[in-house]
């Protein structure tokens, strides 16, 4: 950390030295101010703390402090059985519980090497894409509120409410679902699930467009985010960025395409990457843009899944769930594309126990946030807020 103290403008000069007295000319003292932003601050999205060293409005350096929400996820995992970890994964990225569950379940399934019914796969993809839209809505809404626009935030939450009630109807819970289980699902979907999801898709399309016009095409919004917090592609990769953050830097990298899992290879969707016409590649606006465009792609995926999903009367979604999950000795690193990037699990099994020897969660927000210190150097405080917002952190996942 840069040495704290007097700013460089401060200088002392001896201008005249008489026989008896020394006249010293001194510039006015300017000192750096340490500004502790958070853990209770409206725009740190939870309990992140940034220790900013500021020179007026300019942030000289910002050091993130984490751990206020640390709940020993990895320690718990070593104590409980494999299926009992699923609810804990919900609590990591609580805005995208389905995606967290999916990532965990496919990792364990990879270790178990078991087949999943096709209907289950499609339902998993539908719910996790619905959750991706919900998560992006929160990301966009809170980003708008970070930049001072209140109305888009409430528009986002209004639409997210429809997804929440859909998922509640399916799983019984609004945020912490415990719906995707290892080898299957907790329940099959209700009877007119397809109609209601299709209704939502038709409802949401114009709303997403409205949101785009209200926020993304707003002159002030563009001014606030354009050319701010630029991250070049190679540095982004070196920082381990993933998801919309990496795509915002112009790297076409989406695990649903590049390391396909579930039924994604059968589906037709684009991976939106900023082309540099509307935004500078790698700036806050690009990252926002990627999220805004991804919602449309998710809608496409949901529509295709609804078409392709096999109808099976009296389908038992728990039929193939192993009674006792005890994988053979080995280790696995499995991952899935979360709304915030690559959510990976590194699991070690000793072949004897029903709980993992080691379960490490590779949290996308944690990795994305680690670039904060570099990104914030020399930015204005309002830009710092814009950058934090564009990283779209969920502290539950950062601190685990």
């Amino acid at each position, binding site marked *: 950390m840069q040495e704290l103290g007097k700013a460089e403008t401060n200088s002392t000069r001896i201008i005249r030295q008489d026989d008896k007295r020394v006249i010293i000319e001194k510039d006015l003292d300017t000192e750096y101010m340490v500004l502790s932003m958070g853990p209770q601050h409206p725009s740190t999205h939870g309990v992140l703390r940034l220790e900013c060293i500021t020179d007026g409005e300019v942030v000289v350096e910002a050091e993130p402090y984490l751990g206020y929400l640390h709940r020993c996820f990895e320690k718990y995992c070593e104590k409980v059985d494999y299926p009992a970890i699923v609810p804990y994964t919900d609590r990591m990225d609580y805005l995208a519980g389905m995606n967290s569950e999916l990532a965990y379940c496919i990792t364990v399934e990879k270790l178990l090497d078991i087949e999943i019914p096709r209907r289950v796969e499609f339902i998993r993809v539908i719910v996790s894409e619905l959750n991706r839209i919900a998560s992006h809505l929160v990301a966009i809404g809170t980003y708008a509120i970070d930049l*001072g626009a209140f109305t888009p935030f409430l528009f986002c939450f209004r639409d997210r409410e429809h997804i929440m009630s859909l998922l509640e109807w399916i799983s019984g819970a609004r945020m912490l679902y415990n719906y995707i289980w290892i080898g299957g699902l907790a329940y099959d979907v209700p009877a007119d699930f397809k109609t209601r999801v299709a209704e939502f898709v038709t409802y949401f399309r114009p709303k997403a467009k409205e949101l785009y016009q209200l926020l993304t095409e707003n002159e002030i919004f563009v001014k606030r985010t354009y050319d701010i917090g630029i991250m070049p592609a190679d540095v982004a990769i070196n920082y381990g960025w993933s998801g919309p953050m990496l795509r915002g830097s112009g790297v076409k990298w989406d695990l649903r395409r590049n390391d396909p899992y579930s039924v994604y290879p059968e589906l037709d969707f684009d991976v939106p990457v900023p082309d540099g016409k509307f935004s500078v590649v790698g700036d806050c606006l690009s990252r926002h843009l990627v999220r805004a465009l991804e919602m449309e792609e998710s809608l496409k995926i949901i529509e295709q899944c609804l078409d392709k999903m096999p109808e099976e009367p009296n389908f038992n979604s728990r039929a193939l769930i192993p009674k006792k999950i005890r994988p053979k000795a080995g280790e696995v690193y499995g991952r899935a594309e979360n709304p915030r990037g690559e959510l990976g699990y590194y699991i070690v099994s000793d072949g004897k126990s029903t709980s993992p020897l080691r379960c490490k969660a590779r949290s996308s927000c944690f990795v994305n946030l680690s670039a904060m210190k570099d990104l914030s150097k020399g930015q204005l405080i*309002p830009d710092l807020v814009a950058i934090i917002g564009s990283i779209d952190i969920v502290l539950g996942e950062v601190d685990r």
Partner: protein
Amino acid sequence: MSSSPSLNTWSDALSGFSIGWFPLGLVIVAAIPLVFIALYALTYGVYGERKISAFMQDRLGPMEVGFWGILQTLADILKLLQKEDIVPTVADKFLFVIGPGILFVGSFLAFAVLPFGPAFIGADLNVGLFYAVGIVAIEAVGILAVGWGSNNKWALYGAVRSVAQIVSYEIPASIALLCAAMLAGTLSMQQITMMQAGPGGFMHWFLFTNPIAWLPFLIYFISSLAETNRAPFDIPEAESELVAGYFTEYSGMKFAVIFLAEYGSMFMVSAIISIAFLGGWTSPLPNIGGLELNTMTSGPVWGAFWIIMKGFFFIFVQMWLRWTLPRLRVDQLMYLCWKVLTPFSLVSFVLTAIWVINH
């Protein structure tokens, strides 16, 4: 002009009334609009803002207290009155306590020269406009006192931003108002209004009699948003950056006073813009042939009605902008002031001068 002699007599009699040396009547005359505005600001301003924002955001807003939540503000006031009045131990107590008072006084002093009708005016100063523009600057002192006295870094940031903003935006705002003064040839608020009165209704307003006036009108409107710290220029209280800006440490009644001052100055700038460009208390309706709409809708009560309606309209536009637009950044705000608004206000000043010379 359409001033009503009977009301003038009545108000003259009232202002002449005094108990001993104390001119009670004069105080009452001056207080009537003030009390009205204070009540308005507290109840309908806050309620209106909450309802308008709610409708813009697809929700209902306050619905619980009274019919359609109409008593919500009263409940809020009761809550604020009951709250503990916290003064932080490390705060500069004197400044902390006096700051909201300065803010309040600053925003309400200008009401003295606002004409609410042909007879309703606290003091018809011959430098009324000048006074109104000048007295607003006291708010900057109040904000600085509040921000510095809180001994809170966020509050200090908010205060410094706010003072920089108010001082900067006063320049284009004053030059824009000067255009109106030039068109009227006077600085007296009452006479500026009278210059825009006539049987043609809105056709006599400066905004419509003069092809240039829309430019100072827009400049003043934008600057007034910045002067009252309203979105998209609400950076001094930018809640996502500075928590709550200069009043972060305030609670209870002191917070309510700051809030009230903000709504007061919102109405004040709205009234000034209506007086300078939209004819103040004059009726917008023209006389069409035998149908004398203008004459019918003029008079002391109508005058107060019209200026308050015009004020409400601008407050509505302010709220509309607030709930639509994101916030500018500090440097963008200053850029807008010094590199866009100030040059354009000078241009409009020159153009208005040419117009006035040629007419």
